[in-house]
């Protein structure tokens, strides 16, 4: 090694040792953006923004060492963010690559009713290998999301959801708070045992049904699908036993989620929010799961500025926000208290991985300009070989 290289290497080693906080290294800061779904680039067809979404079975690694089979839009969980401007003409070409049925529901969007994605109500399900084209105008402004509406209890928690953001050039929140950076956090809860068992059952059933349907052998009772309520009631009167009766199905427990994710990941792989002192950031919160979350930010109050995408007349100042299933809430955080602060569900059952605390939807608000010396550890911790705050701890 020549002297020049030695100095270079030495400088790099010094930088690492003087910069112990891995979260604040340039690489780590750049990696933060990887934890957020990138907006899908549309193809312009005249004045129509055309997006291509597909769904397939996918293995999602929630944290290192734990993966499960999922349903994923474009092989990612959540699906890619669709970001358009208010009034845009939108076309989404949806391809079903699985052996299951699906649809897409545009949650909060004023779509024409035949585009609403509810099987047997607004459309027939998109069957295996088939395509469906959704067309609508992007209204209203705000934070929304999309999700599968077939077998919703299973398909949503299996991963079929993504954010849908309708921007406005005269964004009232941006005008009021003047933020430059914004983040989208999509929350979900997964009973991975339920997902696994049900996916296997559904795959088996669909193989059987598709075989029969290709031969034109649709059987209403066998498929538990009727034209009208009257027809269904008449079938029961004639002896048909619906699939929910106790001689066909024993009472079973509803899903009990044991993994809680933000943007498809659980702590310590959850996305972190970056901020600088004096900066305001907008955070779009979407609950695509079945559980309520009570999201609490340490060391700060924040402003609740939008509810279901709609700007609230008077922003609320708070430090804990309730995020119910199906809700979107936008908050603005003002960078007033430098440091590293956790942002997590205060129903701490959801801050667990497979029942073990900490985990789940725990994440951090990180001030990029936090002085390194504030993160130093005490003597005992250094003797333990630990470098600096924050530390990844998996079992408290």
């Amino acid at each position: 090694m020549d002297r020049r290289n030695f100095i270079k290497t030495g400088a790099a080693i010094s930088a690492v040792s003087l910069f112990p906080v891995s979260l604040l290294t340039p690489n780590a800061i750049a990696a933060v953006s990887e934890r957020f779904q990138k907006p899908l680039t549309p193809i312009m067809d005249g004045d129509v923004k055309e997006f291509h979404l597909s769904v397939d079975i996918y293995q999602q690694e929630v944290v290192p060492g734990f993966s499960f089979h999922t349903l994923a839009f474009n092989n990612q969980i959540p699906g890619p963010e669709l970001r358009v401007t208010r009034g845009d003409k939108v076309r989404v070409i949806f391809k079903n690559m699985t052996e299951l049925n699906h649809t897409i529901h545009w949650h909060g969007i004023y779509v024409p009713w035949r585009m609403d994605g509810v099987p047997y109500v607004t459309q027939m399900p998109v069957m295996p290998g088939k395509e469906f084209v959704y067309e609508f105008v992007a209204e209203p402004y705000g934070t929304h999301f999309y999700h599968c509406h077939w077998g919703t209890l299973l398909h949503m928690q299996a991963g079929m959801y993504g954010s849908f953001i309708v921007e406005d050039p005269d964004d009232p929140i941006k005008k009021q708070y003047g933020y430059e950076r914004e983040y989208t956090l999509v929350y979900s809860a997964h009973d991975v045992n339920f997902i696994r068992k049900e996916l296997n059952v559904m795959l088996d059933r669909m193989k059987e049904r598709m075989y029969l349907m290709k031969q034109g052998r649709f059987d209403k009772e066998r498929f538990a699908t009727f034209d009208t309520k009257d027809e269904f009631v008449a079938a029961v009167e004639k002896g048909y036993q619906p699939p929910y009766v106790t001689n066909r199905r024993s009472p079973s427990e509803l899903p009990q989620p044991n993994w809680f994710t933000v943007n498809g990941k659980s702590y310590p792989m959850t996305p972190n929010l970056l901020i600088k002192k004096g900066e305001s950031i907008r955070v779009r919160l979407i609950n695509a799961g079945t559980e309520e979350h009570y999201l609490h930010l340490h060391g700060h109050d924040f402003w609740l500025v939008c509810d279901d995408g709609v700007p609230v007349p008077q922003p609320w100042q708070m430090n804990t926000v309730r995020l119910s299933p199906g809700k979107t809430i936008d908050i603005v955080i003002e960078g007033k208290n430098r440091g590293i602060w956790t942002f997590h569900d205060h129903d701490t059952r959801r801050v667990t991985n497979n029942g073990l605390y900490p985990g789940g939807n725990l994440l951090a608000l990180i001030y990029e300009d936090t002085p390194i010396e504030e993160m130093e550890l005490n003597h005992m911790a250094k003797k333990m070989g630990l470098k600096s705050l924050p530390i990844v701890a998996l079992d408290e």
Partner: protein
Amino acid sequence: MLRGSIFASIIFVFILSAASVEAEVSPEIQLGARGVMSLNVDSKNNQTTDAISDFSDTDFMVGFRQKMYNKFRGQLVIGFQFPDADSDLGQVFFHQTFIKIENKSNIFKMGRSRVKTTLLDFPLLRDDDALLLTTALNPFSSGENSEDHQYGNVIEFIHLFSQRYQLQVHAEHFRKTPKTLGVAETDFGLNALGFVLQYKVPQSQRWNRSIIQSVSIGTNNFLTDRPGFSSEYDQALKNILFSFAINLKPDPVHFWDLRSQTIYNSGFREVQEINEFGDLTRTEAIGNYSSIRYLYRKMERPSLQVAFSGGYKKFLNTIQPSKLFQIASSIFYRIGENFDVGLQIQYKDFSGDLKNLYGDNETRIQFSLIYSIDQLWNNQFDDRESLLNLEHGYIP
């Protein structure tokens, strides 16, 4: 004696303390039970002789399974069954007591379990209904207990090649009967070994429309004490088994299949008369048993099964030409989930030396009620042969 007790006590305490350390991993618990109740009307040599209530083959099994380190899974199964009333096995017989360790492509099993004396299950009321034709018979047995031919202390290794191909290598200790009164059984040495090559479509892929369900070839070598022969090869009683099962009509509603198994027993050339059961197992013979089955599946569940089975066995080296011929017809109708009523009629015809053991013919009519369950609690991971694991990537 005292020293032995202390030693046992130390081991017990050691295991107990180890169990408390590992208390955070509670296993999957599997419960299997089958009740087979029948009213049998027997006729021997064209004379009605008996009408009995029979609950043999009723069994109960419990299994515990968990993930191990390094992508392996471990399982303990304990089960007992009620043997035939005329057996010398007592009121209950522990037919399954084994531990199994497996990963994606290897299975190792040790303990009491089903032996590889048959490669297929046939659609009959009880496993032993056509035992003389469907099983490579245990030459150490007196013929009193059908369990002697079906269960043994096994050591088994299976390697799977690309999901559907497998090589099974097995060694067993088969029960020796009758036991000498007042003398404890001390010899539990391995007295048989063999292998099986098998192509088998996993049950979960039954709707993938393949014609072949399974094709297998195997050997069973019983290491007997053959008077006058010292070479182990010459002493071994060699059986070769070949089987196949094919879908005649792989339709989810009206399903037809055919299964067939041929067993060739090389026998000992000096055994030319059948005077007792030991001779029957030791003389050269070839036999085949086949079944054709129709299964009607209503509402995506089995509803009605009708099967016609038949087989023959020809003894090739007996001075007096000897044959066994058997036909059976069965019908099972499902009256509730896992609950069947059945009717089975069997006719057996014996000729030559076999008349000494079984008479001219036997007819048996059985009216039956069968209830079987297979439940799993605390499910944590998927089976190797689930659709997700087979078709969408295996998760250890």
